[in-house]
């Protein structure tokens, strides 16, 4: 390695991994969730007693299990990207992505059980302010997980075909970045809705 390339390798990358467009999309999504989170926090500030009481009706264990499922899925996806970018190994990447898909599917199953419990108890968006936020906020995130699952499935199919190389992995990195955004948002949502009192 020449001194010139050594210096170049140490320099920070100018652009984030993946397409620049996906990062603008991610930033827009993060902004939308920020508004949602702030609205929840300030609505709670007006009536903390109601929010604390209603929080006790939630299943915190399910929320924690879902956090573990999402971070495990995110780790699998990150390892999948690493398998391609570092080793050019599409077969290994497809197995890691399958792990990510399994984690996401587990999240959806747990969330559906939670929703079945909530809606089974006759709770709706108009039950009270807490449940209006709980249902709308978690469902908004739920839809993002579904979209993320679709993206991961497409990426998995692409890696099965061996389409990515270390120098051509933009699609894989873009999809992975979106999935990590979904994980990032839940990492804030879990303590905000299920833990904070």
């Amino acid at each position, binding site marked *: 390695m020449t001194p010139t390339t050594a210096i170049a390798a140490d320099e920070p990358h100018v652009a984030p991994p993946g397409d620049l467009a996906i990062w603008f999309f991610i930033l827009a999504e993060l902004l939308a969730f920020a508004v949602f989170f702030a609205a929840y*926090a300030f609505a709670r500030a007006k009536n903390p007693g109601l929010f604390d009481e209603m929080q006790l009706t939630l299943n*915190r264990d399910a929320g*924690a299990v879902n956090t573990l499922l999402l971070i495990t899925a995110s780790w699998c996806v990150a390892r999948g990207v690493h398998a391609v*970018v570092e080793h050019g190994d599409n077969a290994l990447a497809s197995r890691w992505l399958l792990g990510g898909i399994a984690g996401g599917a587990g999240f959806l199953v747990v969330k559906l059980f939670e929703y079945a419990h909530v809606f089974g108890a006759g709770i709706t968006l108009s039950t009270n302010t807490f449940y209006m936020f709980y249902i709308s906020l978690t469902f908004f995130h739920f839809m993002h997980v579904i979209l993320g699952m679709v993206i991961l499935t497409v990426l998995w199919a692409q890696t099965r075909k061996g389409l990515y190389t270390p120098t051509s992995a933009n699609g894989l990195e873009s999809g992975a970045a979106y999935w990590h955004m979904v994980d*990032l948002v839940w990492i*804030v949502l879990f*303590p905000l809705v299920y833990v904070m009192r």
Partner: protein
Amino acid sequence: MNPIIPARKLDLAYAVLVVATVATWLIGEWWEGHDVLLVVMAGMLTLTFIKCRLVILDFMALRPVKFFWRGIVIGWVVLVLGLISLAYLISLP
């Protein structure tokens, strides 16, 4: 050339995320039977910040990227946790 985070670093980040998530869950279990405690709230927010930072720097692979991009996403975390803290302080009796 793509930004590459070493596999060992990804595994370490995952291990810390699991421990921090279990710690957050334990805080929730304990908090249920106790009154408002600012130190517990601060601890929970600190754990949340650490978790978000690991996802951003290692999983999103922004660690080797120019500060501008890391700054925007970590700035989002600081903004959100700051607003949550402010609302929490307002809610105190």
